[in-house]
């Protein structure tokens, strides 16, 4: 399989700040690479080097087969870029913005108009098409900006934090749009601070911090790096904690961790749901009332914590004792900005 994007040893330093410090990555054609990292990790700088906006101090890169350093103009013909802040002209209408971009991609006038109309429909901006974009909501601006990146149907798209600052609903809309793109075979490199977003959209993830890649793989591989599944239970009666611990030792395949204060027990398991059912059966036989029980897989957040030693989002609160792991809780994502 060919790669839509390759980067080898990209470096960009600003005086003391090692904004990007040796980043190498690949985006196989037709796939989505998620570049995941906290604020200041070097995501935007990486995207700017790949999209010809800034020259790297060292390293090389190709995009859609064109060399970023030697043939930037050719790269520009083959990419669509949506930057971190929606770069739409607020005094122009949505339609005028798209037509202008289409003309600057050198589409003939008629084609530019047709393409703008098509994109406005696709991004549900038809009703607002003839309004200046300063009347648009943040989500609409973002969508228009993304539409601008798609005007010339480029084979490779770069999206720098496409949902940062959006409310959960607009974020959901954006995810749909991006998923749609990928369905049509476009290669995408997107950056994000949101673990959930990378998990949802990306085929492959690189985790970046302080300008360096600290881990890469699929979401599952990254989670596996932090360890496997664990069974967590909370018992009703603190007096039965030891007895419950003995039972869990029989079900799991590792040491049982006991938290007396919260009456919680955690044990590594390998049998997934089978282990869960076995535990439930044995607790039932022993007449121990279980308040809460669940299999907990490590989240990307856990992965990030164990890889970097700090959480991905500084302002994020530590998660409560929620045992279920497969819901899309938007609340915790709202805080980062």
């Amino acid at each position, binding site marked *: 399989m060919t790669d839509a994007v390759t980067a080898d040893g990209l470096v960009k330093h600003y005086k003391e700040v090692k904004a990007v410090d040796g980043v190498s990555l690949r985006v196989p*054609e037709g796939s989505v690479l998620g570049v995941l990292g906290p604020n200041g990790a070097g995501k935007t700088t990486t995207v*700017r080097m790949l999209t*010809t*906006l*800034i020259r790297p101090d060292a390293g090389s890169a190709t995009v859609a087969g064109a060399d970023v350093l030697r043939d930037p103009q050719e790269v520009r013909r083959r990419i669509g870029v949506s930057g971190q802040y929606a*770069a739409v002209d607020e*005094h122009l209408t949505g339609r005028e913005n798209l037509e202008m971009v289409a003309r*600057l991609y050198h589409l003939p006038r008629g084609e530019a108009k047709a393409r703008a109309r098509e994109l406005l429909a696709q991004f549900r901006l038809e009703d607002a098409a003839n309004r200046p974009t300063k009347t648009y909501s943040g989500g609409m601006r973002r969508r228009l900006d993304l539409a601008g990146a798609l005007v010339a149907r480029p084979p490779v798209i770069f999206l720098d934090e496409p949902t940062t600052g959006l409310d959960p609903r607009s974020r959901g809309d954006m995810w749909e749009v991006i998923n749609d793109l990928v369905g049509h075979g476009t290669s995408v490199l997107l950056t994000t601070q949101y673990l959930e977003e990378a998990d949802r959209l990306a085929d492959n993830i690189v985790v970046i911090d302080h300008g360096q890649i600290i881990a890469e793989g699929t979401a599952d591989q990254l989670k596996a790096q932090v360890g496997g599944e664990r069974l967590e239970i909370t018992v009703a009666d603190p007096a039965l904690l030891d007895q419950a611990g003995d039972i869990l030792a029989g079900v799991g395949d590792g040491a049982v961790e006991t938290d007396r204060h919260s009456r919680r027990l955690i044990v590594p398991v390998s049998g997934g749901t089978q282990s869960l059912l076995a535990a439930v059966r044995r607790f039932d036989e022993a007449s121990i009332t279980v308040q809460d029980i669940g299999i907990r897989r490590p989240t990307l957040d856990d992965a990030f914590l164990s890889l970097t030693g700090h959480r991905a989002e500084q302002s994020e609160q530590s998660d409560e004792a929620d045992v279920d792991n497969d819901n899309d809780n938007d609340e915790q994502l709202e805080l980062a900005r």
Partner: protein
Amino acid sequence: MTTEQLTTGQIARPSAIGSFVSDGLTVAKRNLIKIRRVPDLLIFTTLQPIMFVLLFGYVFGSLAGSGASVQAGYREFMMAGIFTQTIIFGATITGYMMAEDMQKGVIDRFRTLPMHPSSVLFGRTLTDVLNNVIVLIVMSLTGLIIGWRLHGGALHALWAYVLMLLFAYALSWLFAFVGLRVRSPEVVNNASFMVIFPVTFIANTFVPSQNMPSVLKTIAGWNPVSTITQSARENFGNLYALKGNPQPTHAQVDKQTAYTWALQHPDLYTLIWTVVLLAVFVPLATSAYKKAVAK
């Protein structure tokens, strides 16, 4: 699949010159839409010059003397000066707009498009010219209403306007460079006021410079603002308006008002400035543009 994707994604490759011109016009069109949509800008563009003509004409005019004809003579005299000052302010719009586009990420977007690298600047500076043409028309009409007359013939007047627009165009490139290098549009505004007011006042724009104290007189004598004004006065036939006797254009050089070589050859001197400004700031602005990214 690979090749098909790449080819559908590829964009027609116009010639460099074709792209330069058409991209520049696309950008200029965008700027014109903006002028139309932002009323402040439109008001600024049309009302401010009217206000200047009236204010300067009647307030400073009263300094010239007490007779009505003397004051009317001053109004004729100062028109060329106000024209010059106003079109110089017009050139700062480019600086402001470039800084704003940088800040908002619009330049980032342009720079990832397969455009000719100078076309954004070309489009932007071209918009200033169009803007200045509107301003000159409005000011000229206002001037005609308050009694300003051309005594030098239409062709000479036309040449005066062209020279002003050329010089302002070169200045637009200077301001484009400044706009690309500062942190915010407000900086351009404040800085340009700080610079443009002294530069346009230490000149023969509003008062004859030969009576200034010696240092100022010398600066004014070599200030291109003075030479544009001088040229316009000659071409409009307003050179002797202060003395109450309008003269035909290009009368013999008046040793009193034209006390430097620059003032004796105002067209040539202005053109030299224009060419030098362009030669310096077109490459500088282009190279700043090629490196510009939103902060």
